[in-house]
């Protein structure tokens, strides 16, 4: 019995020493990643809002008319562009709401539940943003080039401003997608335990 107590003591004090030495380095490094996460989130919000706003204000009316054709184009002529607008609005709303969680992750670098929650919700947001951006990109490609096999006319030749704004919105959406991919990367790296 006395032998067990003698052996147990030095090992417990050695354990205590190891914990004190190891703690500050992971915390500082995790704090750094949480700060980068917050800044990237702000960037993703800016590009998602820019995409939604550019698509929403993309109306164009040509200055001439005939009896049969309409010569105005706006985003609600295509259901795909409506989906794009709603999708990017959801993504920017989610990103704004996730800012407090990001701040909590900066303040408490060892909180695992918060980072896990953020990585899952960021993946859902990635899917929605990529989906909206890709669908709109398909339509924009068709509007620029047309398709001879199905007799679909390239409308960009007539509506140049509308086309430019819509293309710009798609580019902004893909910038947002890249930001969200980096957000997931950072959360995954910070989830590791030390």
């Amino acid at each position, binding site marked *: 019995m006395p*032998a*067990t107590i003698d*052996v147990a003591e030095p090992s417990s004090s050695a354990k205590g020493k190891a914990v004190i030495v190891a703690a500050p380095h992971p915390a500082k490094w995790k704090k750094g990643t949480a700060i980068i996460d917050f800044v990237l989130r702000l960037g993703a919000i800016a590009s998602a809002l820019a995409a939604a706003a550019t698509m929403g204000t993309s109306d164009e009316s040509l200055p001439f008319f005939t009896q049969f054709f*309409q010569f105005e*184009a706006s985003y609600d*002529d*295509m*259901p*795909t562009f409506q989906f794009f607008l709603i999708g990017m609005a959801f993504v920017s709303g989610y990103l704004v709401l996730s800012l407090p969680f990001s701040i909590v992750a900066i303040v408490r670098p060892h909180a*695992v539940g918060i*980072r*896990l929650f953020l*990585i*899952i919700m960021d*993946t*859902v947001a*990635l*899917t929605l943003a*990529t*989906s*909206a*951006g*890709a*669908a*709109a*990109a*398909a*339509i924009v*490609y*068709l*509007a620029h080039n047309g*398709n001879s*096999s*199905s*007799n*679909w*006319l390239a*409308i960009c030749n007539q509506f140049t401003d509308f086309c430019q704004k819509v293309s710009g919105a798609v580019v902004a959406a893909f910038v947002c*997608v890249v930001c969200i*991919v980096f957000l*997931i*990367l950072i*959360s*995954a*790296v910070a*989830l*590791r*335990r030390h």
Partner: protein
Amino acid sequence: MKQISDVELGDKAKSSSPRSGVKKGLSILDFVLRLIAIVGTLASAVAMGTTNETLPFFTRFTRFRAEYDDLPTFTFFVVANAIVSGYLVLSLVLSFFHIVRSNAQNSRVLLIIFDAAMLGLLTAGASASAAIVYLAHNGNTNTNWFAICRQFNSFCERISGSLIGSFVGVGVFLLLILVSGLALSRR
């Protein structure tokens, strides 16, 4: 001394087996999900890639043949699904490694990063094709784009059906990232 070290080893084995059991279960779930995703994406790529419909009449001016490479978006869809199913087959190796060594961390992070990238690619291909399929079904009066599904029925059914496998793959990738994140965060 021998008795003490035996007791310590016994304690370690007891405390780590339920935790490593959960991680092992998550790794096995990861492997099974990857198999499902391979089937879904490969089926989509094949279903879209083998579309070929020729209507039995013709005129001098209009084509009456529809294939997937008439529309560049569908070509992108086939290529994206092929790349994703190839990646999934290669990642089965890493997934199996995680079943054997459930405590690996850096390789799980690598797997999450690649899974997120492939999720983006697959979603892009699937939703771009969904936009074109929607247009093919309904047309658009404002731009005078005519609904080609009215003429090419079996082509239309094929392209609509191949979207399903791809979206199943998207759902599976979401689950894969969730499972990898859970396995990473357990202490």
